[in-house]
Every structure is written in C-alpha cells, then in structure tokens.
C-alpha cells in the first residue's frame, strides 16, 4: 500500500508505464552466468599465457599453474555447455531468444534502423527509438563479437585442450582438426588470445552501452535482463 503522500505524488507526476515480457528466465540466467564465466575465462586465460611471478621452494609444495588451468578448463566447459543450451533455447524459447543467432540481413527496415542507431550514438539524433528486443546496432555487435566469436573461442579453446588429452581420443576426433587448420599450435594460441581481447573489448562496450541506454532511452534495459520485463517509460 502506498502512503497518502506517495499516492498524491504519483498522481501528479507519475508516467504511464507499459511493460512487455521479453526475456524468459533461462535466457536471463544464461546471460549472467555467461558474463561471470567470461570474466573468469579472461583472467585465468591471461594468466596461462603470462603467468604470475615465479614461486620458490619445492615444486611439490605448489600447484599454481595447475589451479589456474583447472579453473580455466572448468569455466570453459561450462561456457561451452551454456552455449549449447543457449542454442537449444533459441529453438524452444520466444522469438527474442533467436535474435542473436539470426540477423535479419535481408530486411531493409532493419538496416535503416542500424543506420539510425549509428546516428544516435554519434549524437546526430536527439530522441532514441524504442525496441522490444535488442536494438539493431547492439544486435550487430552481439552477433559478430559475441555469437561468432564465442563459437570461435570454443573451437580454438577445445582445439588447444585436446592437444594434451592426446591423439586418437574422442576429443581429438572432434577438435583435433582445429590446430592444423590454423597452421599449428602456436598460431592457435595467438588467435585464442586475440579473441579474448576482442571479447573483453566487446564486453566493456556492451556494459557502457547498456548503462547509457538505461539512462537516456525511454525503456528499461539492465532491469529487463534481470526481471525479463521491458518497461516503456512514456
């Protein structure tokens, strides 16, 4: 129950708010778990390539790289499993669940909206548009710097992982072709690491854009990924 004073204030200055349920619970859960995993993977992965300062004493007393790699591999398995689950949800979930996998490349209006969003981010438009799902510009970024990149990282990652599980196993059968395709182990390491930097750059951009749109646009953004409801504020 609102207090008398609050009801008065709401009547005087409140906006009508419409809400639409956009993101379903599994998708939201995946988003946040995925975000956490990406941070864990980036940090542990960085430390695999550029390890912490050396430890002294007996080798038997430490297992530093072992732990770092363990964390990386467990997180990577979860990340890959999440990606598969997310792909499954694209089939059974609502139409917004399909957005980051299928871009409407043939849709001219969509391209016009991409252009509009570009103008909006370049301060050439004064009022932002509202979207039920992702904004087209964000979607374009997500598709190339998350969807495509995430599969690329999973493939290169498992390609490197099966190097030490050995030739001839199931892992080698599934991912053993990746390393020779990219011209050797070292090249694969290089692409995997470069991919990490691009993914992190995207993540930073993504967070910035989300906060900015939450403040400036006329609909909810971050809370939508928490509650699932898109609120239109006017």
């Amino acid at each position: 129950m609102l207090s008398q004073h609050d009801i008065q204030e709401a009547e005087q200055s409140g906006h009508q708010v419409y809400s639409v349920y956009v993101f379903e619970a599994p998708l939201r859960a995946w988003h946040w778990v995925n975000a956490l995993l990406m941070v864990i993977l980036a940090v542990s992965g960085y430390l695999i390539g550029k390890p912490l300062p050396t430890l002294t004493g007996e080798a038997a007393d430490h297992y530093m790289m072992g732990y770092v790699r363990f964390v990386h591999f467990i997180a990577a398995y979860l990340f890959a499993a999440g990606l598969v689950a997310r792909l499954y949800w694209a089939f059974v979930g609502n139409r917004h669940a399909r957005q980051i996998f299928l871009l409407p490349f043939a849709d001219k209006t969509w391209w016009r909206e991409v252009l509009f969003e570009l103008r909006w981010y370049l301060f050439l438009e004064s009022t932002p548009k509202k979207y039920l799902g992702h904004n087209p510009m964000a979607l374009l970024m997500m598709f190339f710097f998350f969807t495509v990149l995430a599969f690329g990282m999973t493939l290169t990652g498992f390609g490197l992982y099966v190097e030490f599980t050995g030739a001839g196993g199931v892992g080698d059968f599934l991912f053993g072709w990746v390393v020779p395709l990219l011209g050797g182990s070292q090249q694969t390491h290089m692409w995997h690491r470069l991919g990490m930097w691009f993914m992190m750059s995207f993540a930073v951009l993504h967070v910035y854009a989300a906060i900015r749109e939450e403040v400036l646009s006329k609909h909810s953004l971050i809370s939508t990924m928490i509650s699932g409801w898109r609120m239109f504020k006017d």
Partner: protein
Amino acid sequence: MTETFYEVLRRQGITRRSFLKFCSLTATSLGLSAAAMPKIAQALETKPRTPVLWLHGLECTCCSESFIRSAHPLTRDVVLSMLSLDYDDTLMAAAGHQAEAIIEMVKEKYRGNYLVAVEGNPPLNNDGMFCIQGGRPFVEKLKETCADAKAIIAWGSCASYGCVQAARPNPTRATPIDKVITGKPIINVPGCPPIAEVMTGVVTYMLTFDRIPELDRQKRPKMFYGQRIHDKCYRRGHFDAGQFVEAWDDESAKKGFCLYKMGCKGPSTYNACSSMRWNGGVSWPVQSGHGCLGCSEDGFWDRGSFYDHVTGIHQFGIEADADTIGGAVAIGTGAAIAAHAAVTVLSRIRSGRQVQETAAETAP
C-alpha cells in the same frame, strides 16, 4: 632381389646375439610389445633389402648429419646396411653421370618398390632454377624419381614444411614435398634436424612391417610426434607448480625451473625430444637450460622471436603479438567509451539548460 638384411649383417661380422639385441631395442623404441621382437627378427631374416634413393634439395644436410649419428652404433651400422642406400649425393662414392644413372637403374629394376627419402625441398620460382642438379632443376628430378616410388619420406622441416628457405618472404618459393608430389604416401619427419633415432625408427618400422607408420593429420608418424615436448618435459612439474625462470641468470634458472616465460616453445611443439633426447640420450635443449625453438613446427622461422612464446603477428606491419594488439584494442575501446560518455554528459547538460531556458521564457 639379392641378400636379406640378416645375411648382410652376418657378412659384416655382426653376431646373432647383437642382431637379436638390436631387434629388441628397436621393438622397445617403437613402443611395441615384447611379442613384436621375434617378428622384427623374422622380417629382417627373410625380407630383401629395400632400395632407398636419398635426394637432396635446398637444405643444409643437417638431417644427414643427424642420421649418421644415430645413437646406438649398432643401429647406425644396421640401418646403413638395411637401407641399401643406393643413391645419396653426400654419402655415395659415385659421381656425375654414373651417380645419376643409378636413379634410372633403380627406377627400372624396382618399379613401385623403392623408397624415396627427400632432404630439403624444391624451389619453384623461375622454373626451379634456384636448385640445379645434374644440369636441370631439382624439382624435375624429384618428380621423376618419386613417380614410381612406393612411398616418400620427407626428412626434416625443409621437406615437411619449408623451413628457413621458405621463411618470409621466401624469394625462391621453396615448397614442401607434399605440395609438389601428390598421389603417393608421404611421411613427414619434421625437425631441424629430426632426432637420429626418430629417423632410423621410421625407416626400421617401414622396412619391418612393410607399411608406413600411423600418421597424424600433418602426416607425421604418431609414435614420435603424437605429443608435445611440454607433455613429457622433465621440467613440467615446475610449470604446474608455477615455478618459472624469469631471467637467464636468476636463481630459478640455476634450480632448473620451467622455461615457459623465457619463450620455450615446448607447449606448442610436437616432437620426441623430451622423451628420446639427443646424441644418444645425453641431453636436449631444455635440459641444457635453453627453451625449445619449436624447430619441428610448421613455419617456425616466422613465428616471432625464439624467446617469446606469444606468436608475433605480421599483418600490422610492425612486430606485435596478440597481447599488444589486443591490449591496444581494449585500451582504444576504453578511451572511446570515456570520450563518448563525456560527450553524452555534456550534451545532456546543454539540452537540460535549453529546456530550463525555454521553460523560463515561456513562464508567465
């Protein structure tokens, strides 16, 4: 088809006891069970020697140098006898037309039943004029010799991947064997040079079992190139513990910690150095305190510094690696975001003021 291997050995004064010792040693080094030893002995006793034509293209002869130093003296003797090495520019007595005639003779007599071992590779630019043998381009000689061969062994990184003569910008267009010869079984035995026992091991396997060893996706024998240096490295424990050499003369270097941070290519190099070692098991690069250069990997000359395990990226015109480029992208993104946020805030303040001003103007 004259003598068997065994007859040749006995003729050279090798006792049956030594012969059997060699057989069991070979079975062990090939990773076979004890039951394989009599099979090897049986094969060597009954099979005629297979002729081998050993060709030299653009190369430095380090493969030959390694090969003739095959650790066990007996192995060396046996393999040199086993092979019936009918043609090898650097080892044979014949020269000139006599030497070249041997190739024709073997091709004629053992059609489809001889091995070609190639050390080095053919340059293809200017019709192959950068490597002339017997008055004509090596690439022609290679193609003709391989035409009737049973199988081809590509010795070393040159023949397998191109090695230093194929390094950027590869002015002569030196080309690995499997890009020139098609339709024949090719065994890549990379390394600069390959380990002597790996070379003799591959040959022994092929002669014993009359088939080529199981190969991986890059046509390397799995038994020697199935694992990375890193997987069997005796310093691996220090890697897992997080104990690294940070400078060539630090305390960790003296203690023999992992050379990962000094650019050891062990984690990305497939070879048998860490298990078989060099010069009869005396030592190998990591044991002597220096990281692996990755000499048995494709294009190892073009992968940046030998002392940096993060690969160099050349596409940007400058020496850079994934971290410098990736870091620059990340910092650039951060800077762009900061600038964008600042402009956003400024334009908000300005438009806010405008709203206030219009509100003030329209106010009664």
